[in-house]
């Protein structure tokens, strides 16, 4: 076709008009489409959108409840709330944050650490929440900001409740701390299906009791029905439903005893767990060094955090998660096993030459030349190793494991704080599971021998030791250790008791128990604990222990030559009063050397306070003389 040559203007106009008609048809079609969309939304779906528009006007604004208090057995408040003003920035409304903070600094003091913490919070929070740049404003600072408020859109002063731990480091590992809600916490909240109750909550228990009892402490969030605009600004309150404060935790813990125990450690690292044997209530739970939980509440500053990440590991709860060979504190339990399983009688003796020869290998005793003639009483009081090398060999590893398991060795106690380690209760089966290669999986009889004196594969946590001590003190009736005595609803006064949870009663013959207890009393009157307990006004039972950090392979152990962190861990277990035990405890001093040297004096101070109310004037002294005293 060559339109150029046979141009027909009329035909061209006709064609154009046809195109216009097509376009007009398309326009009508498009408008019909729009109209049907409007009809769908405004007639058919009208009711649905009507409701949504109504709901839009009324928003439920959460009112965060007061968090429950944590109170010790005597009513001493260990965690409380206080109201304070914070200066908060809403990052999505404030514009150039850096500039806003610089300008704010001209009105209110903002330290570099405040800036750093704010930056950290900004990185961690993804929502449109407001974040504190300064907390705990003074009245003067509040007044100064209010006068200049017009300059700072998106910056507000808010009255918020803060968690406060009035005693700082005291019992920090038991109480734990709260911090700002993170992804992991949200997961926990959703799993528990309480997301609605956490609207408006920006703190969550991170460790310790604060974590374990988070959902009891939190309380019921209240709501205000507020007419709001899309920016979330409240225009008018229509109705309100007040929040219900969280429940209080009342502990079995005695904060005074806790304080005495912590002070007794001085600068030393370690752990102490004291339990009421009659019900499993934890009286003191010490892990040294501690930390100040107050640092975490508004988000810890990077400097403070770095300061907590030292070799001393103050954030590690040694009482629950540290595992250590029990050393000679294992001997009373071994002796009890021998009696119960009929392998020894109390009066049966051995002759100790100072070593035990097994397959050409000399297992040495601490005392050169040996202890001579040793019966069961002497084996505990003087802590004779050779007696237990022989005994272990006679019992065999699986019999030992079967006897020890009911005492809780090698399994979590189930205390109401998270972070417990399991430890290792060795047996042939355990070794098979633990190792892959066939030659490693085999249990060698020689490995059983060091288990007799609490060395070798077995490692337990201090709380396991304390629990076993309590079980022994309570004649085999075992309770699960717990720190919370009851949960108190402060409005109704209703108390939910944490009932003593009887785990089991280990079937032990009373006469056998009596033999062991008597020997442990002997430890503190004429044995390895005698120096630490000289002049005590009560009868107590105990056992020293030393847990080897470093095998010296036949060389003589000389304290001065061994680096501090390679020194042995000192242990001590005790119960008192001997005839009717009110307290059972386990002490561990990391790299403390012999048990008698540093662990026993700590136990003495704790027992003195708990039974007699004696407050020590200074930390427990290391007993230098105990170093030369052999047989531990």
């Amino acid at each position: 076709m060559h339109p150029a040559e046979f141009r027909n203007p009329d035909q061209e106009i006709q064609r154009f008009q046809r195109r216009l008609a097509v376009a007009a048809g398309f326009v009508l079609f498009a408008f019909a489409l729009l109209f049907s969309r409007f009809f769908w939304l405004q007639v058919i779906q009208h009711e649905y959108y009507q409701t949504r528009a109504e709901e839009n006007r009324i928003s439920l604004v959460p009112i965060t409840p007061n968090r429950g208090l944590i109170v010790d057995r005597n009513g001493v408040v260990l965690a409380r709330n206080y109201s304070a003003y914070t200066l908060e920035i809403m990052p999505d409304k404030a514009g150039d944050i850096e500039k806003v903070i610089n300008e704010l600094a001209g009105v209110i003091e903002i330290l570099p650490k405040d800036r750093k913490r704010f930056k950290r919070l900004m990185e961690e929070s993804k929502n449109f929440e407001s974040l504190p740049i300064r907390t705990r404003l003074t009245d003067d600072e509040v007044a100064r900001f209010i006068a200049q408020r017009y300059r700072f859109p998106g910056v507000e002063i808010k009255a918020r409740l803060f968690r406060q731990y009035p005693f700082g480091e005291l019992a920090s590992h038991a109480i734990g701390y709260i911090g700002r809600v993170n992804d992991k916490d949200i997961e926990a909240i959703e799993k528990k299906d309480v997301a609605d109750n956490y609207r408006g909550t920006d703190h969550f228990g991170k460790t310790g009791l604060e974590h374990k009892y988070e959902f009891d402490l939190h309380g019921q969030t209240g709501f205000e029905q507020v007419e709001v605009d899309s920016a979330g600004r409240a225009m008018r309150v229509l109705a309100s439903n007040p929040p219900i404060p969280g429940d209080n935790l009342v502990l079995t813990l005695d904060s005074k005893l806790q304080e005495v125990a912590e002070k007794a450690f001085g600068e030393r690292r370690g752990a102490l767990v004291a339990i009421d044997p009659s019900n499993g209530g934890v009286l003191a739970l010490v892990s040294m060094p501690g930390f100040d939980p107050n640092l975490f509440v508004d988000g810890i500053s990077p400097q403070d955090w770095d300061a907590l990440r030292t070799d001393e590991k103050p954030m590690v709860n040694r009482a629950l998660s540290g595992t250590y060979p029990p050393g000679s504190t294992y001997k009373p339990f071994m002796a009890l096993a021998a009696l119960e399983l009929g392998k020894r009688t109390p009066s049966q003796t051995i002759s100790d030459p100072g070593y035990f020869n097994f397959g050409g290998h000399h297992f040495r005793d601490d005392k050169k030349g040996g202890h001579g003639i040793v019966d069961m009483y002497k084996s505990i009081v003087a802590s004779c190793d050779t007696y237990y090398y022989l005994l272990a060999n006679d019992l065999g590893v699986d019999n030992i494991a079967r006897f020890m398991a009911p005492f809780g060795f090698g399994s979590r106690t189930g205390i109401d704080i998270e972070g417990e380690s399991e430890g290792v209760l060795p047996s042939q089966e355990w070794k098979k599971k633990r190792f892959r290669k066939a030659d490693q999986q085999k249990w060698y009889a020689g490995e059983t021998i060091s288990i007799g004196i609490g060395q070798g594969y077995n490692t337990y946590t201090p709380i396991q030791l304390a629990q076993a001590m309590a079980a022994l003190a309570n004649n085999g009736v075992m309770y699960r250790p717990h720190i919370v005595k009851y949960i108190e609803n402060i409005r109704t006064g209703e108390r939910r008791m944490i009932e003593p949870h009887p785990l089991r009663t280990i079937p032990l013959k009373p006469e056998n128990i009596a033999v062991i207890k008597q020997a442990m009393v002997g430890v503190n009157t004429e044995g390895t604990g005698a120096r630490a307990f000289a002049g005590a006004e009560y009868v107590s039972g105990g056992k020293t222990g030393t847990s080897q950090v470093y095998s010296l392979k036949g060389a003589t152990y000389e304290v001065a030559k061994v680096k501090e962190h390679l020194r042995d861990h000192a242990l001590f277990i005790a119960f008192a009063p001997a005839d009717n035990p009110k307290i059972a405890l386990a002490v561990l001093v990391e790299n403390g050397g012999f048990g008698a040297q540093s662990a026993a004096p700590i136990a003495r101070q704790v027992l003195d306070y708990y039974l007699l109310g004696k407050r020590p004037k200074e930390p427990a002294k290391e007993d230098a003389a105990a170093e030369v005293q052999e047989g531990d």
Partner: protein
Amino acid sequence: MLLRRFKKVIRDLWRRLVTPLDPPLMLILGLLVAYAFLVLFSASVDRLQNQVINLTVALIAMRFVAQVSPQRLMHFALPLYVGGVLLLIGVALFGDVSKGARRWLDLGVTRIQPSEIMKIAMPLMLAWYFQKHEAALRWKEFVVSALLLFIPVALIAKQPDLGTALLVLAVGFYVIFLAGISWKILTFLAVSGLGSMPLLWTMLHDYQRNRVLTLLDPEKDPLGKGFHIIQSTIAVGSGGIFGKGWGNGTQTHLEFLPERHTDFIFAVLSEEFGLFGNLILLVLYALLIGRGLMIAGNAPTLFSRLMAGSITLIFFTYAFVNMGMVSGILPVVGVPLPFMSYGGTALVTLFIGVGILMSIHKHRMLVQK
């Protein structure tokens, strides 16, 4: 005596000022603008005064363009187009970045948005080009016109300003369509256009993809990207048949509606006047488009036919895209509701378009004779 002279002056003024303005168009526009002010009064009363000023400027621009004959208008085509493309290249090289997009060119005195110029320059250029080659419109002319179209569209799309790019593409397409491109080629273009969708998708920016995804499922992110669509849909739906009444829109007055005086003003209208109010607006637009197409159909030259047709259809496109976006059937793009939304630039551009229509209508006899 004095009264009679005064009357004569008034009559003179009327004839000189108003006669070139097409009365039907003026009537429709008058109703639209009155409607717009009614809605704006509810949406944002503070901006009323400014919009009166904008309207005055736009009317003056319209009146000025209306008296320029299509023949003189053709002279502007090439310089405006070339200038526009050069400015777009300038933007690409030296433009200011604002909200992640490079759209503005700072001339020292003022900042301009060259893509806005292309909305008028594009139909002018193509209509001029077709007029020039009226004698022989073959495939070669259509290829050239396609190139003329795609260069600025690509430059605008790269800024990135997908909304404006699509509008410029649409107006160019209307010119080419009305010029008589064969249906075969159109079908081919449509098919290959659909075929290249996946490729286009990979070329889009994240925020552009998000807008499309948000359209598909706005509830997925109700406080973020889906917020605008959800809130405007609620506004429209809750309006019902007769609306909540003037000034009673809760979505509007509780500030749930974003940009309620500009791109989302239709949601205000819809909420307060309901389906009935929407129908009035659709009818007014249909009348405006009908009148425009009628002017196009009666226009004497190819240039004026193409200009009138494409301008009219671009009014339609603005209206359709905006209402489609607010009611949730099209993605969120920055297209104002023609003659209704608050804002000077768009209003002036639109009234210049009307001015061109009026000029074409007024000069329909002059050329034929």
